[in-house]
């Protein structure tokens, strides 16, 4: 941004504005985050380590990882397919598709989880069928995976669509004239150019999958050691007044969040580097 002294605010105004912004962030962001760590380590490092390595905590971590490793790749495939369909073709109903993709953002997580209960739950629409065949979806892993997929499926698509749209269809059309199949055009022309957007979307999708609380809370049944993800485990500890343990486990998620932000910044930086060179 050019330095334009002729048009700047007075130094006093500037400092006041910066001060106001910093105060707001300190009150609502930095203090609460800091307290997570302070409380987690309040009883010493040993208690901290014990909290994050006791069996139920480990089971929760394992479950979170499994769910994430299933949900995210599936959503990547979906995101790529949706972005390819929407940006490189014209078809009726495109607007509706785009609205559907935005849907999870507008819907409360509790409702997102609830719809699966209504479908697969004991008194749900196909509940009796499932019970007869001894298939467990809700209150079990499949339900948690489904709910997580529901709330995270837009992230990859939403990052890819503007990125793929920005370059138009010419590059892919050129590839086709040169003899490439659709798949080759997609692999060799489209993908390399949306690398960063794709990565950005994957990071957001993963972060949300790890941290999802409301939707998973509804479908999981809270069975200790079995159907508790890390956020749910934190809730249980907190409700049992095991504050130190709850915050200790919470620090793991804060680390993940910080890692997410760091990766985002890194990607943004690499993207701007690429623009400078190009």
């Amino acid at each position, binding site marked *: *941004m*050019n330095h*334009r002294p*002729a*048009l700047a605010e007075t130094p006093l105004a500037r400092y006041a*504005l910066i001060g*106001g912004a910093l105060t707001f*962030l300190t009150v*609502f962001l930095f*203090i*609460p985050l800091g*307290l*997570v760590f302070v409380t987690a380590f309040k009883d010493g490092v040993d208690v901290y380590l014990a909290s994050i390595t006791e069996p139920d905590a480990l089971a929760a971590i394992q479950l979170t990882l499994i769910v994430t490793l299933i949900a995210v790749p599936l959503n990547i*495939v*979906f995101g790529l*397919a*949706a972005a*390819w369909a929407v940006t490189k073709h014209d078809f009726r109903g495109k607007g509706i*598709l*785009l*609205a*559907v993709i935005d*849907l999870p*953002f*507008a*819907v*409360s*997580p*509790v*409702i997102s989880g*609830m*719809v699966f209960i*209504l479908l697969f739950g004991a*008194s*749900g629409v196909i509940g009796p069928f499932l019970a007869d065949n001894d298939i467990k979806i809700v209150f079990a892993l499949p339900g948690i995976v*489904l709910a997580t997929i*529901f709330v995270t*499926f837009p992230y990859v698509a939403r990052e890819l669509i503007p990125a793929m749209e920005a370059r138009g*269809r010419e590059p892919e*059309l050129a590839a*086709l004239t040169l003899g490439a199949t*659709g798949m080759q055009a*997609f692999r060799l022309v489209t993908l390399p150019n949306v690398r960063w957007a794709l990565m950005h979307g994957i990071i957001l999708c993963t*972060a949300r999958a790890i*941290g*999802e*609380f*409301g939707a998973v*809370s*509804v479908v999981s049944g809270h069975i200790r050691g079995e159907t508790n993800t890390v*956020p749910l485990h*934190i*809730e249980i500890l*907190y409700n049992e007044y095991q504050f130190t343990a709850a*915050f200790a486990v919470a620090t793991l*998620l804060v680390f993940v969040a910080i890692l*997410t*932000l760091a990766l*985002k*910044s890194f990607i943004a930086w690499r993207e701007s580097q690429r623009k400078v060179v190009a």
Partner: protein
Amino acid sequence: MPGLSLSLGIVFTWVGLIVVIPLAALVVMSASLDAGTFFDTVTSDRAIAAFGLSFGAALVAAVVNLVFGLLLAWVLVRYSFPGKKLLDAFVDMPFALPTAVAGIALTAAFAPNGLLGGPLADLGIKAAYSRLGVVIALIFIGMPFVVRTVHPVLQELQPELEEAAATLGATRRQTFMRVILPALRPALLTGFALAFARGLGEYGSVVFISANLPHKTEIVPLLIYTKLEQFHYAEAAALAVVMLVFSFILLFVLQRLQKRRRPSVMRNRPTEATA
């Protein structure tokens, strides 16, 4: 271009399984309720209190985020100061942080014996375990929306506009009110709507800080959750349908806002509106 049938095939299968069928179940379930019970559920005292709180708190929080989001975007775009890059990255924290962690962190800060809650309590203000607590949580999770929608617009704003206003005799304040702010209005509205929509449905961060007292500090998502736990599926579905109607209206408004032609004070850019 090839690949339409394959990609659309994948898309529609996915969307069908994950979105359409579950939502259909919702409709079926709520249709099983006769109209009378539907209305009674939705208009019960407890439900009305919950709706009032959810909407009211989301609105207040969105307004606060409107003001401070603009402030943050301004400071990040226009000024340089030590730690600015760090600040820029941290503004996105509410997006990256799980809501449960946000919930316990905010409660720890604003509880009566907390770092911020203590001084407030001395002033007679109850932060956590009250409606104010709900608002605080919603301010937290809505924080990045306005900042992220306003930031690119502010960055691309033609300096010539401010120069022109100055040559015409406007003070800095007049330039801001009459030239800069109107140019930012679409972005501000979009950010506000996003923060509001997010606040309406928020669950995780609120349930820790609010104490969830029915009729007092109970938000609609929690009410739905409680009904589900009691196996009152149909009632839960009824409440959900009402919430969804509002969500769809908001979604529609948002689509319109994001599609509207931007004034030609800047190049066209896609909006980054992640939740």
